[in-house]
């Protein structure tokens, strides 16, 4: 390897030459957080897309009415107090003395304006469907009215980041309305931002770099946060993102890829935080395409044949929590007693009972760059199914191509990962196991074609039940039934991982939703 050695010598010389130069000018008085995510937010318009990146941006530059704590409780933010006036009305009191980046003061009108805009956004409109009317009672009070009782209003309030209605009203230089939501194009809101949040955006180069500065007039005086400036760089390549942290080029990275967890954990200067996540990874078994899947015994045999614990342990290196149901712990519908099914003998027995002792052939599809180790998991699953004589023809695709195939239900078994936007159990059933109906949009991702109208009815009732305890019982019944009928093959909840330089306390500001509350981040002296 002489040419490499020669290069090394060249670099050595170069480094010696530059060592005397001061590193990039550092001002000691300000705390700068250099962070790297796998992607940067697609736009500055927080209503343009419902995605992790946009929500992370929302929590940096705006504040929600209420937000989730680490234990999935509600914490007051811009709404200082709330009460359920009657079954269909929720009254919220806004915090006083909150101003936007532009200097305008937050009022109830801003909240009304924001919800109206959310109801126009193609991505948020479905979630905000239940809200019928929002009215500003006075400057600091706002009332949410629903047509029917709706138990998840507070969950929705975590998505309401009041926007500066005055700032976003009027027309821009091109004569387009400033509040317009444009998916693909140059809207005013996608380039300009005024929120109430802890940081203002000072620079935005899409795909390259984003800079934030602390909002000097931030309302939350109790926040321990001491970060004055944030530089966000998207680094999509896993190995490079980890290298950037270990070499000290950045102070905070997310996500940490499972293959590098050990390396980061062992590094003295790095601080690794992992959490069991809420995104369920599962396989659908298409009953329309494969007759055998209509038999619950066959479906059960499949769940018994697949070793979820093995996948979580060995393939995911412990970076996943094996699952037997949709709802992770902490969700209303979570049933603690559901045991993970893994018993190869039982699987073989069940197949024999169903009359498929000799197995059959199926096709399977999975993405190869969407979830952690997705293609590898699919390979492992198809190998496990071979043991009950099921011959799997597996095809893995990049996510850009995969979703088109998914919409066409192009294979007998298809992989999907799902995170409930409302952090609530009902959402899983509505999208993944409700009887598919193109009219109502129910079961939009139900590639198994599983259909149980009784469950649909139960979930509909649960979504009208204000009594949270009763509601939880109903949702648990749904999970139990899905488990008993083996509606799908649950695999695991994908864990989350972040890492930072050791003098940065990231643990208190992280949560399972993966919106780090960077406004409260504390950087200690090195």
């Amino acid at each position, binding site marked *: 390897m002489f040419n490499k050695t020669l290069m090394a010598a060249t*670099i050595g010389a170069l480094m010696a030459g530059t060592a005397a130069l001061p590193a990039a000018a550092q001002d000691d008085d300000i705390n700068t957080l250099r962070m790297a995510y796998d992607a940067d937010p697609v736009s500055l318009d927080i209503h343009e897309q419902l995605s992790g990146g946009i929500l992370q941006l929302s929590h940096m530059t705006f504040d929600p009415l209420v937000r989730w704590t680490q234990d999935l409780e509600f914490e007051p933010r811009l709404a200082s107090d709330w009460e359920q006036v009657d079954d269909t009305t929720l009254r919220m009191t806004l915090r006083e003395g909150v101003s936007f980046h532009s200097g305008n003061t937050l009022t109830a009108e801003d909240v009304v304006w924001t919800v109206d805009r959310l109801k126009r956004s193609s991505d948020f409109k479905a979630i905000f469907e239940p809200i019928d009317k929002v009215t500003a009672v006075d400057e600091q009070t706002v009332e949410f009215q629903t047509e029917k009782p709706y138990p998840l209003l507070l969950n929705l309030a975590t998505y309401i980041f009041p926007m500066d209605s005055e700032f976003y009203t009027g027309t821009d230089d091109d004569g387009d309305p400033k509040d317009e939501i444009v998916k693909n194009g140059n809207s005013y809101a996608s380039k300009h931002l005024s929120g109430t949040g802890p940081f203002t955006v000072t620079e935005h180069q899409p795909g390259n770099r984003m800079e934030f500065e602390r909002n000097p007039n931030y309302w939350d005086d109790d926040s321990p946060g001491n970060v004055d400036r944030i530089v966000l760089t998207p680094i999509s390549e896993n190995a490079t993102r980890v290298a950037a942290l270990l070499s000290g080029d950045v102070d905070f990275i997310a996500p940490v890829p499972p293959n590098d967890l050990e390396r980061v954990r062992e590094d003295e200067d790095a601080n690794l935080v992992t959490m069991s996540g809420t995104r369920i990874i599962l396989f659908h078994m298409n009953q329309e395409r494969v007759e055998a899947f209509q038999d619950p015994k066959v479906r059960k045999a499949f769940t018994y044949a697949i070793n979820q614990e093995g996948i979580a342990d060995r393939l995911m290196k412990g970076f996943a929590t094996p699952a037997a149901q949709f709802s992770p712990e902490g969700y209303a519908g979570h049933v603690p007693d559901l045991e993970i099914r893994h018993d190869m003998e039982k699987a073989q027995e069940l197949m024999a009972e169903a009359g498929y002792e000799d197995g059959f052939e199926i096709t399977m599809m999975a993405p190869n760059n969407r979830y952690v180790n997705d293609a590898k998991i699919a390979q492992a699953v198809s190998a496990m199914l071979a043991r009950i004589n099921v011959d799997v023809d597996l095809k893995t695709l990049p996510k850009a191509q995969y979703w088109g195939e998914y919409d066409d239900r192009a294979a007998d078994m298809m992989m999907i990962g799902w995170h409930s936007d409302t952090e609530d159990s009902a959402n899983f059933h509505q999208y993944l196991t409700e009887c598919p109906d193109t009219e109502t949009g129910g079961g939009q991702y139900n590639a198994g074609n599983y259909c149980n109208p009784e469950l649909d009815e139960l979930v509909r009732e649960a979504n009208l039940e204000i009594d949270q305890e009763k509601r939880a019982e109903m949702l648990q019944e749904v999970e139990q039934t899905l488990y008993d009928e083996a509606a799908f093959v649950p695999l695991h909840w994908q864990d989350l991982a972040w890492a930072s330089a050791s003098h940065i306390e990231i643990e208190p500001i992280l949560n399972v939703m993966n919106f780090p509350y960077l406004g409260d981040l504390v950087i200690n002296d090195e």
Partner: protein
Amino acid sequence: MIAFLIKRLFHALLVMFVISVIAFAIQDNLGDPIQQMVGQSVPESERAQLREELGLNDPFLVQYLRFAINAAQLDFGYSYIFNQPTTEVIARHLPATLELVASATFLIILLSVPIGVYSAIKPRAWLSRFFMGVSIVGISIPVFLTAIVLIQIFAIGVSWTPFPADTAWGAWLNDLVTTEGGMPAYGRGDPVHVIGTWYTNFASPRGLLYLVLPAISLASIMLPLFIRLIRAEMLEVLQSDYIKFARAKGLPLSRIYFLHALKNTMLPVITVGGVQIGTLVAYTILTETVFQWPGMGLMFLDAIERSDIPLIVTYLMIVGLIFVITNTVVDLIYGLVNPTVKLTGKPA
């Protein structure tokens, strides 16, 4: 000369036309851009509406004609992921790639000429054999690996203690194989603004530092090829009559090697080399991904991952254009160095 350039201009247009047709024809296999634009829970009706708005439901010919008519007016459409005209997006990413390719080219020339010439003059010396052996290894190591190893050694640092640390010589040897790290592992740092969309890394020593590792990785692909090419050509030239005659005449060896022989050696090297430098632009995709270098390669990979069809098509057309331009420049230079070659193809 003018006729030649006009002919090349038509070549360029033809290449860009063919590329755009092919890129357009395969777009259905590149995935659904709508999927990338909306959240997972957005209902199908909303998606259908968006698809209609973007004109994705029109037949192929209608879509292509709309694109071609706009492209003829230098409007190549809007990038889905950057929400900007594709030409603007590419203009912003182009300088980073060109600077990286320029630095790699500089490294290649700086190293390959002396090494190639040396191993041709002294083909049996152990150092020459060593160079040749290494270049075989070098040519077979993927750039991805080279880059990651470089990052580990020079950015993160390795501490390795194979020798007993308690002895003086052991400690000294350990120090020798242990690196501190500290080189930048990703990105361009804070490049200096020059003009328009051009930010440069060449203006400050700190900026140059960011270039070192990516440039070395990129150069490592072509370096072995150039060393072998120069060596082979030089060996052949050294056998020719005029060199033997020059020796017989008693000219100093250095003059024979570096003036008379090297000149003729470089003729084919320029042709092959010029085309290869064009290829380097394509190789930047890998290097830029590993080092998160914000150039066209990284942008292209992003565009593919997120099915940004307008950006993919524009990028491919521009890379096609770059190939035609490098070929043209190579032909021009070749004409200058070798007067027996007539560009227009007429006999001399």
